[in-house]
């Protein structure tokens, strides 16, 4: 069975890899994109896979903190599936970025590269949340695996579950804000955070149910939860329809109506029936994400898009099966049958009714509140620094923009503190000191590498013998352009630069303020301070987030662009708008 599944997933992965390679080579033009919102299938797949990545933590951590007993094998399988789905999920926003090698630019590590990471951007929030979630999920799986043999690991299993509980919900909430915080009318919804969580949890449950069927056993509570999830998804779909008039009947059928077949005992009691219903949910949720990202309808869906979908499923299946086989001894070593679960966490020492703990020494404080307190302090310090940087650079922001960064920072710091204590106890004081020193050294090195690396060319450079855009001869001694040069440079500016800098040179609100690090404000005083030669050099060779254009435009054209930008900077915004309108005519 495993071999057959492995071959099936490989058959999906191989053409998927070809599609992925082609997509990376060609860039966003390779896949279908909604021309109204400029987003395409990779974003749909990202939301879909990040939703599936909720399964493990939901099944394991949330059930643990709520005292819902379940088999160890089921929870470890679900946690493994989380990590595999997370690996698949992070690939898609990276390829959607276009400049894949500059992914770390979205980290809110301010000022180190001379550009401001945009903390108002949901993309930056995504980066932090997924990083924190991935890190904690790995630690959680390791702790869970070790918990049977090590009392130290068992002691932090439950507190870690408490930390992961809000984190897993936070991740998908932030993903929902990618949509809810935009200008697109179809995505406006203050209910999106909870709607996305319901969808994610629902699809995660369906995935775990399929896995359980493949393993040959079942969990009735999961099936009931799936049914409840289908009702709530249906309610949200109808609420969206009531507010905006959007309703996908296909999604309603696959994700809401077909799961009701679980009320039929013949379907419910058959493995094939459960697999088909769960698969219907997965398909319905995938379609829901696709229709969400394409509000004006899916157009130009081709083999590349199909290949990307295959890539996701193929990669997930292959990684999961390999990890499943490698960990089979751990997963199946001490199998416990459903309903006979023993407590793996040691019972708390019986304390008398009036037992006294000195202030700040209770087990609850030491295990959970103290790490959380340290996390809150670290987060507060970070936010104070961020606010200082934003104000110093004159960037407008709201306090609400900073809130999404709090949970990942608090949880990560608290998780590290929580794991450090037993780790130090386990390996001794000397080993602990060495580990802390190594971690500090690693942090310093990472900071140095991050702060010192320069932008890498995007790889899209045309050979020097190719057709370079030129502007003709420009006078060297003066910073003006004649009317012919203005027309030429304006066309190039609008084709190459306006996407980020805006047609009037005052930033493209949609692309820059929301999704990318904020570029330098090129007002007239700054342009004068930098000088024409310096700016020409930036255009040709790139700097931080600015891609190099050497080979695609001539040095003369770069100089022409600098002068055109200066012209825009000298002109009031209203005049620029009038000029653009006139130019269009």
């Amino acid at each position, binding site marked *: 069975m495993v071999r057959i599944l492995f071959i099936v997933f490989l058959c999906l992965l191989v053409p998927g890899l070809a599609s992925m390679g082609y997509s990376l080579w060609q860039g966003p033009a390779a896949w279908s994109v909604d021309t109204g919102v400029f987003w395409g299938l990779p974003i749909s797949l990202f939301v879909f896979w990040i939703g599936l990545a909720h399964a493990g933590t939901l099944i394991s951590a949330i059930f643990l903190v709520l*005292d819902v007993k379940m088999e160890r094998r089921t929870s470890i399988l679900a946690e493994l599936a989380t990590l595999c789905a997370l690996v698949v999920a992070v690939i898609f926003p990276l390829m959607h970025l276009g400049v894949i090698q500059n992914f770390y630019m979205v980290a809110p590590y301010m000022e180190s590269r001379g550009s401001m990471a945009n903390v108002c951007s949901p993309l930056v929030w995504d980066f932090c949340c997924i990083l924190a979630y991935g890190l904690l999920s790995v630690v959680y799986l390791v702790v869970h695996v070790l918990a049977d043999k090590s009392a130290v690991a068992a002691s932090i299993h439950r507190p870690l579950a408490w930390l992961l509980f*809000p984190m897993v*919900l936070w991740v998908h*909430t932030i993903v*929902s*804000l990618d949509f*809810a*915080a*935009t200008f697109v009318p179809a995505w*406006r*919804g*203050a*209910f*999106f*955070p*909870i709607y996305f969580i319901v969808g994610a949890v629902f699809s995660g449950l369906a995935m775990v149910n399929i896995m359980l069927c493949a393993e040959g056993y079942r969990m009735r*509570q999961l099936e*009931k*939860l799936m*049914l*409840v999830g289908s*009702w*709530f998804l249906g*309610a949200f779909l*109808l*609420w969206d329809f*009531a*507010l905006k008039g959007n309703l996908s009947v296909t999604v309603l059928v696959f994700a809401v109506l077909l799961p009701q077949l679980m009320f039929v005992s013949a379907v419910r009691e058959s493995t094939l029936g459960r697999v088909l219903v769960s698969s219907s949910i997965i398909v319905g949720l995938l379609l829901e994400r696709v229709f969400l990202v394409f509000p004006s309808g899916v157009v130009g869906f081709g083999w590349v898009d199909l290949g990307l979908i295959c890539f996701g499923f193929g990669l997930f299946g292959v990684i999961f099966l390999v990890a499943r086989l490698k960990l089979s001894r751990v997963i199946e070593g001490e199998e416990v049958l459903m309903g006979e679960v023993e407590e793996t966490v040691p019972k708390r020492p019986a304390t008398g009714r009036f037992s006294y703990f000195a202030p700040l020494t209770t087990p609850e404080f030491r295990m959970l509140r103290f790490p959380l307190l340290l996390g809150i302090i670290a987060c507060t310090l970070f936010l104070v620094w961020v606010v200082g940087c934003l104000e110093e650079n004159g960037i407008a922001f*709201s*306090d*609400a*923009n900073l*809130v*999404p960064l709090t949970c990942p920072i608090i949880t990560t710091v608290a998780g590290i503190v929580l794991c450090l204590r037993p780790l130090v106890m386990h390996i001794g004081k000397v080993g602990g000191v060495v580990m802390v020193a190594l971690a500090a050294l690693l942090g310093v090195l990472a900071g140095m590498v991050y702060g010192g690396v320069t932008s890498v060319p995007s790889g899209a450079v045309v050979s020097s013998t190719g057709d370079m855009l030129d502007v003709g001869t420009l006078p060297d001694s003066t910073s003006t352009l004649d009317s012919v040069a203005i027309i030429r440079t304006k066309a190039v500016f609008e084709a190459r630069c306006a996407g980020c800098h805006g047609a009037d040179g005052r930033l493209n609100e949609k692309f820059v303020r929301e999704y990318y690090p904020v570029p330098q404000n090129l007002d007239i005083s700054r342009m004068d301070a930098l000088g024409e030669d310096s700016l020409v050099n930036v255009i040709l060779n790139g700097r931080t987030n600015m891609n190099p254009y050497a080979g695609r435009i001539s040095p003369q054209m770069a100089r022409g662009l600098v002068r055109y930008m200066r012209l825009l900077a000298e002109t009031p915004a209203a005049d620029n708008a009038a000029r653009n309108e006139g130019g269009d005519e």
Partner: protein
Amino acid sequence: MTPLMSSLACVMALAQAFFLWRGKMHILKEGLLLFGFFCISCVFTLLVGSPDDPQIEHYPLRMLALCLCFSTTSLPRYRRRYLVMAQAFWLWVELFGGIALAYRGIEFAWARSLAIFLLCCSSTLLSRISKEMEFCLMVFWIAIWILF
């Protein structure tokens, strides 16, 4: 939404909470009740809210969260845990709904979110929830709903 209708929504949430967690717990029964309450809240919001007001978008969820908060006072066991979780859910709805609305130029309701946050944090310190404390909590929730 007018203050009168807002008060009516609060009463509805209180009335719905009466039916939750009664007798033996069954996932399907409780899930169906919550689904029903959510649908009723949606219909209520559509009837009394202005379609042009973006704040109605998460109003049914706010009603559901308030209903869950009220319902935790009738739980037989683990009341503190579920009390905190219900308030955290309410805070979640307010906070992220508010952030989504803030991007559309609607002022973020800091006072409401802060009040729920403080109440949620202080609830974690409760060791025993007496009848008087239940009453106080319900008064606080109603006050937050009506005043902020």
